[in-house]
């Protein structure tokens, strides 16, 4: 097998059964595992560290560094847990679903390599409850693995230094909360507790699930492991076009000609993704702005199209690469309505633990509703800005609220004109355009009634 350019998606073929073990193995599946079983845990961790793999869930934390905090060796706790975060609920993100449904074995292989690296014997897949097909296929894949001694006791029948390697995987189908994507809230949910984030420290690597060392990583992160082990860290680093290593699954949604997902090298330009892979804007629509990494990232504008999709590059522009799934705002959709929709979602998904999120977001929603409903006042804009500062990183217990206000704060910056127009005309110039007169008279009528 030559080193592939699309390691994650090369298994996804036109064949109807590409998610099955035989197909996966025919494309080199489980080669990574075989290789890993010949390596020591130190070598495995060293390779992962050297690969510069960064977490694909959105925060981009270096995976090798994260894993190195897990206590290993003779004194370490014997019970450790690996958790695949497959609770994909970020607005605009659907990349994990693709991997879950099409390449379940890739995730299992990643978990097994994680088990070898950290000395864990239990893996959990925390799956978004609505991903029925993914659950079915994961379950089938786990059964297949058990039949072929790829899971369970003494995997592949070849021990490591005379010790049998045992590993089990359990699927936890979530009851469905966006906050479960936060790793400590996810752990609480798995323990049967309320899905509220936990205080850190202790970090899960030291005391996570049931108080034991625990690694939580995104689906895509785990999927990268077999290939890093199989083809080496140098190969992985060379895949990236910019600073970051490897490939990434990018997606585009909105009014483009071909919305979809593509595995592309890290550092591919946004322009290439939108104009080449997604086919550009639909006829009659112009690009007004876009969220580069899903619903909780700051807007970027047309002028940023030549930026490279790289964690640090996008960071410099004041946004985040997040999940790498771009949401397009076109010139005929109201940006306030879009932001309202997003902030309303995040307010809805707040766990209710800390004040800026629980009470600050609904306050922002009420102001946005007021503006979008044609009853806004200029001071509402100031209040919205204040609320964005209020929910800034560090002020809240977890990253939900800071993420929630990112589209809002950037919309206030880039589309302030739209806010002011809404307020000046006491209506939404986009959606109320056809019925402006009617809307205005309704507003006036209400005012008379009210006074």
């Amino acid at each position: 097998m030559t080193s592939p350019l699309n390691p994650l998606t090369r298994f996804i073929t036109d064949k109807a059964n590409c998610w099955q073990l035989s197909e996966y193995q025919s494309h080199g599946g489980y080669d990574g595992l075989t290789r890993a079983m010949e390596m020591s845990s130190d070598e495995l961790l060293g390779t992962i560290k050297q690969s510069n793999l960064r977490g694909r869930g959105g925060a981009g934390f270096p995976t090798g560094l994260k894993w190195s905090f897990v206590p290993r060796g003779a004194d370490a706790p014997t019970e450790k847990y690996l958790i695949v975060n497959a609770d994909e609920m970020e607005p605009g993100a659907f990349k994990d679903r693709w991997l879950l449904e099409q390449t379940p074995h890739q995730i299992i292989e990643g978990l097994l390599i994680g088990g070898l690296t950290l000395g864990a014997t239990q893996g959990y897949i925390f799956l978004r409850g609505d991903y029925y097909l993914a659950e079915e296929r994961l379950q089938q894949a786990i059964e297949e693995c058990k039949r072929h001694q790829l899971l369970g006791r003494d995997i592949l029948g070849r021990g490591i230094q005379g010790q049998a390697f045992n590993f089990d995987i359990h699927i936890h189908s979530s009851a469905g909360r966006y906050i479960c994507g936060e790793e400590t809230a996810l752990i609480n949910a798995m323990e049967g507790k309320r899905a509220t984030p936990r205080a850190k420290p202790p970090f899960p690597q030291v005391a996570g699930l049931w108080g034991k060392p625990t690694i939580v990583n995104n689906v895509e992160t785990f999927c990268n492991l077999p290939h890093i082990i199989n083809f080496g860290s140098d190969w992985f680093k060379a895949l990236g076009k910019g600073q970051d290593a490897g490939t990434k699954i990018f997606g585009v949604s909105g009014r483009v000609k071909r919305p979809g997902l593509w595995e592309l090298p890290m550092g591919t330009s946004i322009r290439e993704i939108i104009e080449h892979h997604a086919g550009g804007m639909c006829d009659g629509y112009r690009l007004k702005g876009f969220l580069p990494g899903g619903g909780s990232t700051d807007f970027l504008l047309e002028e940023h199209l030549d930026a490279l999709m790289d964690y640090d590059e996008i960071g410099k522009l004041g946004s985040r690469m997040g999940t790498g799934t771009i949401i397009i705002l076109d010139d005929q959709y109201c940006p306030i309505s879009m932001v309202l929709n997003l902030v309303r979602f995040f307010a809805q998904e707040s766990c209710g633990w800390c004040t800026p999120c629980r009470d600050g977001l609904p306050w922002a929603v009420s102001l946005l509703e007021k503006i979008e409903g044609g009853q806004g006042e200029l001071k509402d804009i100031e209040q919205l800005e204040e609320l964005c500062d209020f929910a800034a990183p560090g002020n809240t217990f977890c990253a939900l609220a800071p993420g929630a206000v990112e589209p809002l704060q950037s919309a206030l910056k880039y589309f302030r004109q739209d806010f002011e127009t809404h307020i000046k005309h006491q209506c939404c110039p986009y959606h109320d355009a056809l019925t402006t007169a009617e809307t205005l008279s309704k507003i006036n009528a209400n005012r008379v009634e009210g006074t």
Partner: protein
Amino acid sequence: MNTLNTETDMVSITIDNQAYRVSPNENLLQTCLTLGLDLPYFCWHSELGSVGACRQCAVKQYLNDEDKVGRLVMACMTPVCDGMVISMQDTQSRQFRQTNIEAIMTQHPHDCPVCEEGGNCHLQDMTAISGHINRRYTGKKRTHLNQYLGPMLNHEMNRCIGCYRCVRFYRDYCGGDDFNVFGSKSHLYFGRATPGALENSFSGNLAEVCPTGVFTDKPFSEHYIRKWDLQTAPTICPHCSLGCNITVSERERKVRRITNRRHDEINGHFLCNIGLFGYEHVNHSERLDAPLLRNNADKCSAILSTSEAKQHLAKLLSPAIIDNQETALNQQALGKCIAIGSARTQIENNAALMKLVGQDNFYLGVPDLQVQMLHMLCSAYQNNSVSPFSIKQAQACDAALIINEDISHTAPRLALAIRQMSRNLGIDNAAKLGIADWQDGAVRNIAQTTRSPLAIIASDTSQLSSLATEEVIISPDEQVILLEEIQTLLAHRLDEAKNLEETNSLEETKSLDDIETHTNTESYSASARRIVDALLTADAPMVITGLQSQDPALLGASLNIASLLKQLKSHAGFYGVTKQVNDLHFGLLIKDEAAEAKYLGIDSFITRVMGQEGEDSAHKAPDTLIILETDLYRYMEAEQLEAALDAIDNIIVIDHMLTPTAQMADLILPSGSFAESQGCYLSSEGRLQHGFATFSGLNQPMMPWFWLADLTDLHHPAEIHHWLSQHFPILAPIETFSELAHINQGSPFRIAGQPKRASARTAIHAVNDVKEQMPISASGTPFVQSMEGVEGFRQSQVQMITVLPANAWSPKWNSDQGANRFGNMSHSPWTLGITLFSQTSPSSQPACPDEHQSEQENNKNNMPATNASRKETNSSALTSASIRLIPSSNLYTDFELASYSSSIHSMSPEPSLKIHPSLAASLNLIEGEEAQIQAEHSDARLMCTFNQQMSPSVAQVPTRLFTLLGKRAKITPLTLKAKEDCDDPT
């Protein structure tokens, strides 16, 4: 576990350019509050720790002096470290705190005028401190339906600010599981799954734990009055024996509410529901408020004036007292006037009564057996063979053994401390990961279900069962055997330790094999060995037991175990739960003559009146009886008791309630309730504490000792204290309180001459001082003449006033949560109390020198003798097939005064006979049907309920019935069909 910080342990921090020396063991919020800085907070609580939910305590932290930007941190989540630079006053953090409270208030209904919390509200205080004034939110507020949560709490969910303190207190701290947080986002709901009375014994604290008015005190709201119109005084809870500190609030001579008064060694921040709500007897319709003279002929009573009553008293008592004095002079102890002392009154009253009638004519108002057990406890404390622990020490210990006492019901606050104690191992595990104990959420995530060793030996499961690492459910008879095994094992370990010492010092070669041959561990049950191992692995293990089951053998064995443990582990402790607020001092009032202690309790009283069998006619029958604050019907079967009372010509009862006993009196003298009396109590850990009166008595502000003053010639508490310390040197420290008593003479607590307040507090100077102008200057007293009683917490810190304030009120901090703010309390004995039994040198004496042995003999020989007074109605029936009875304690039923409160009475369970189904089957008992109980002293009928968890060789009856019935009974079904089956002779 919190040791006092010496100066060397302190670190330097800078807050708003001001340097402070502070303890590094606390978080920044607690540090700021201790320094007297006004930093607002909601989710933090000094007892519940930090979770970082509300974000209200944000401050600016700078990296160093050069850093001018800084970043916001939550003070409650930030450990204090040396060189820390902080600002509370910078614009960003002030703005954040304002916006935060404004966001919180978007959902708050602003219904302060109709809220019971108004003026006593942490949310109001914090809002004012944060500086939030203008409301900008114009959207809708969410609304909730409220729940019925039982007789103690109101529920108004719309006021909720989502701080999570209630659920953390109820579930995490108290272990309750019928209350939770539901919903999410801004639609949180704190309540029960379905409406109903909250089950946890500490539910009432939610009123104080909640920073606003979601949970409010329901009995208080039935006679509600704003906080500033209440008069308050510090005193001691009058129910169980732990001596929790309370603040009583009064208006118009009615007790309006009771709140916790922080005492870090005892109750800390929380009181049980009995303590919080068990005050209604003070306002009760059966209160005695005037002297009554009973006229037997007309079956009516005459109300007397105070002077008439005193004349009557003198007339009734004088001849008998003269007789007593004569007999005493003639070296004959027994006189015609006898008295019964009270386990619920202040020590001073018993002392005065004892002086009046002479010790030999003074009977202690509890059964003889209880007197004996109290004496056992006091002896063990006095000879230093066990170290009585405070509740705080119990909470800090690292292994505990609870023997045959359902402390969740007999000593709830101790049970709550043990609940926290079981977390200590988990807290240690967190500390190993660098997580401080105040990081509550983090510690619990690390600890998960880790539990410190807690062994429970009992006849039934209890609320603490789920925390036990070792639980042995066996009958009391089997417990004796298990305890013997534990003693033998401990004794063996002690021998080993001593031998090892000798071997080391004398270089003798006593081979270990020799010791091994003695150690025939096979004969010990696995449980005994595990319990001993757990206790000996710990640094500060403790034994907890009590008087619940009235079994001297078990108490003796428990004391011996504690004593052996103390010899093996110098930090080992003991807690002996007694039965009433002030019964322990009975154990010190016993004439311990060289030969044999005499346990003069109620049984002895009956014997004295009715005469011993075969006693000659020389027996001098008493003709006058004074009963002080004791309802004899709680201890004796009515028929027998009335026979004794009928034999006495004059019965005088001094009490504040019209008890069944008081109804038998010829002359009734009213006494003050706990809220109207001042005096000393001795708690079951041996702590002597002083309580103040909140207001003067109803119409007759009479302390019992005051009624007797002319006859005893003791006219002042100081004189009583002096008399006590002369006759009972162990009680000599009581003289420490004499000065306090002097100060309050005449007008308890409030100072004479003080003008009656006409209106609400004058608010002009409230920012600086919540007191009104001092009306009259008074020198030489610890009290400040003030409209507010004594000074608030802050003043007491600044001025180091040695008396604990009557409330936790200080400028800007109007709610009860002000008590959270300060780390250290005053160290005056006036406020902390005095522990009578010092815990200095370890002693090698056994707890009860052969007492254990003699107890068993007592059981066989002496006890039946002393109990001969009791009617043995069923003795023949009991010879065979009798069942051992054990008491089923219940918090809401067992405490005499508390059960006058309707809120508490309504929580009492239906009395029932609890029995294991297998035993029930052998007795032909059917669940839900009545059983006839023929016991040693009396009979009873009770409904059967089955209990799978309890020992199958005992039957449980309510505590009060247990006292009347005795320890053994024949139990038969009452229903016809079952009875036929049972009576079938073949």
